[in-house]
């Protein structure tokens, strides 16, 4: 027999009360842990997701929207920039690199980013961390007659089950399935040539295609709409297929369309300026070795801002502002969760205090047997702290599940990829606080136990 055995036996005797009070602590601990971990994980994910571009240009309505859409795939940008505008911007400063991007298509709910193939050489998803291919290789521009290529992010590969050699069709818009949303670009299939290793950024859930192939898809739609495609088709039909198609379809296209005859297809040669639309321009300025912020960054930023037809954003700066805004809100949530923890401690106090009347005889017997007042009070405090510790452990388990849910929600809705592990420091801090608060809550019942009148409590009942 030991003091701890007495404590455990006492908790077991009040099983229901113990479980309920521990659960209230667990919920508070889980809330706090999820919020604290999300805060640090989201901050980390946002900071990582900025990549190594110094500036990002779009035609969106605000710098923050530009960053959220362009780097975190929150939503496809609504207004495009023309290639002429992009060429104009490229010329205003000797950038280290400038990469045009286009968004708007998707595959099974995973966003597609159309890029220049140099993207994988120049752009880094997190600063200082180049792309790593888990399987396959980067994109190369398809020559006439060759199939289009796609590289799949790690989460997208997990979500879709895509592997090297698969053929896919992109969906226009951000539809989550072929059936429910958006027009499917059935005319062109893409071969999976690479699967990326996880980067811990929103890019993990994206698919990457050559921007020229994306232009061709949409040019094809335009040509279908304005009738120029069918006109070509008819011309080909009249020629009885006697000569080579002006825009020879790829072998893959012919396969896709096996309707008994080959449709006219669109190629790069059919592109007009209006087809070459861009939704973002990633810019990196030359910087001295060892410096992360180029001296000319602010100057170039200010220069670009004067152009009212574009929106320019410094990703790092916008992320910092976003975290400040979010910080105020999650501070409120943290306060509420802390209030729940305090409430749960009060519940422990009430449960123990209410139980004191029924335990008066037990306490008196222990006193008669030689337990001091302090030791009795210690037993009650240990009980209280034990409920706190039990709640903290349960809360930790609940927070693991909560974080998994929150991570998948954030990834789907905001495009932020966060780690699902509970922050160890937060776990120690919150669990410690829960136990300390529970012990504090035990002070009043412990005092009542301390003051229990021994002889009066031992009198026979009735």
């Amino acid at each position: 027999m030991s003091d701890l055995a007495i404590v455990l036996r006492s908790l077991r005797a009040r099983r229901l009360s113990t479980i309920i009070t521990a659960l209230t602590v667990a919920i508070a601990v889980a809330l706090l842990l999820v919020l604290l971990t999300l805060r640090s994980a989201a901050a980390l994910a946002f900071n990582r997701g900025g990549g190594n571009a110094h500036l990002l240009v779009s035609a969106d309505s605000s710098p923050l929207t530009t960053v959220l859409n362009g780097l975190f795939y929150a939503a496809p940008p609504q207004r495009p920039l023309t290639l002429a505008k992009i060429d104009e911007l490229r010329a205003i400063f000797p950038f280290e690199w400038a990469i045009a991007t286009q968004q708007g298509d998707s595959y099974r709910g995973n966003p597609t980013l159309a890029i220049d193939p140099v993207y994988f050489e120049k752009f880094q998803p997190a600063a200082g961390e180049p792309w790593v291919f888990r399987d396959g290789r980067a994109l190369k521009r398809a020559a006439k007659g060759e199939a289009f290529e796609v590289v799949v992010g790690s989460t997208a590969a997990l979500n879709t089950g895509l592997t090297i050699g698969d053929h896919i069709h992109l969906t226009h818009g951000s539809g989550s399935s072929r059936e429910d949303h958006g027009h499917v670009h059935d005319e062109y299939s893409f071969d999976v040539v690479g699967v990326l290793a996880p980067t811990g950024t929103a890019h993990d859930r994206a698919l990457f295609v050559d921007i020229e192939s994306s232009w061709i898809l949409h040019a094809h739609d335009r040509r279908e709409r304005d009738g120029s495609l069918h006109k070509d088709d008819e011309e080909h039909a009249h020629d009885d297929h006697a000569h080579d198609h002006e825009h020879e379809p790829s072998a893959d296209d012919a396969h896709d369309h096996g309707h008994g005859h080959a449709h006219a297809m669109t190629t790069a040669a059919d592109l007009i300026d209006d087809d070459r639309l861009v939704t973002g321009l990633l810019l990196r300025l030359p910087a001295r070795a060892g410096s992360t912020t180029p001296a000319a960054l602010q100057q170039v930023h200010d220069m670009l801002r004067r152009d009212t037809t574009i929106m320019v954003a410094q990703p790092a700066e916008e992320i910092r502002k976003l975290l400040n805004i979010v910080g105020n809100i999650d501070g409120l949530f943290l306060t509420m969760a802390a209030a729940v923890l305090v409430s749960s401690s009060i519940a422990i106090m009430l449960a123990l205090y209410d139980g004191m009347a029924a335990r008066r005889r037990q306490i008196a017997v222990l006193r008669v047997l030689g337990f001091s007042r302090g030791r009795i009070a210690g037993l009650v405090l240990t009980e209280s702290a034990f409920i706190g510790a039990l709640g903290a452990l349960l809360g930790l388990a609940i927070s693991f599940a909560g974080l998994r849910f929150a991570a998948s929600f954030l990834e789907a809705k905001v495009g932020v990829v966060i780690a699902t592990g509970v922050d160890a420091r937060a776990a120690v801090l919150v669990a410690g606080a829960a136990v300390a608060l529970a012990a504090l809550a035990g002070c009043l019942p412990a005092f009542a136990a301390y003051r229990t009148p021994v002889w009066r409590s031992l009198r026979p009942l009735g």
Partner: protein
Amino acid sequence: MPAALEINGLRFAYRNSAASNDASGRFELNIDRFELAEREQVLFAGPSGGGKSTLLALVAGLLDPVSGSIRIGGDSITGMRGAARDLFRGRRIGMIFQTFNLLHGFSARENVEIAMLATGASRRDQRSRATELLKDLGIARADAPIDEFSVGQQQRVAVARAIACRPALVLADEPTASLDPPTAATAMELMQRCCRDSGAALLCTSHDPEMRTRFDRVEPIDRFVRGPGAPPPAQATTAAGGHR
């Protein structure tokens, strides 16, 4: 050898108490001198509310006298305070109650072990002593919850708990009041034998006149009660019918 219990100049008073023994509500217990030798057994007899339990509480150090001293095995319990007094009580005094006051939710063995836990005995010592005592007292299912035992068995567990720490003195407060006469007789026999075997003196209180025959020494409690209107004190008797 020091006496198992030695009381000198003890004064204790309740004011406006149900246990009062005069019209003003005042109750006084005065013991100029009382001694209980090692292994000696004494019965404090008297009606309910006569001060017997108060005397036991004073001897156990659960109430503080106005003045005077109480020594157990030569050590003054009235001179001790707080945790030291509690520890001393656990080590040197065993207690048996009318309703046993066993701890529910614990087994018979654990009820005995807890008495030794309070005094710092190791787990191994607790276990071996509790097992030995319960076996001697005929408790076969030592690990069964105490609520599953009969009243007679619970009484035996209470006796085992009282003598577990090999005390100098066992205090028994109306130990047979809840038992039917045959069971009470068996229980008293067991209690007295156990105290003798373990070397403890026994101070028993009872309002039951039948109990007087079981003790060599009987002290009427009213002998020690003082106050306006209190009945004239009776004389202590020995087995031979003499006065002490």
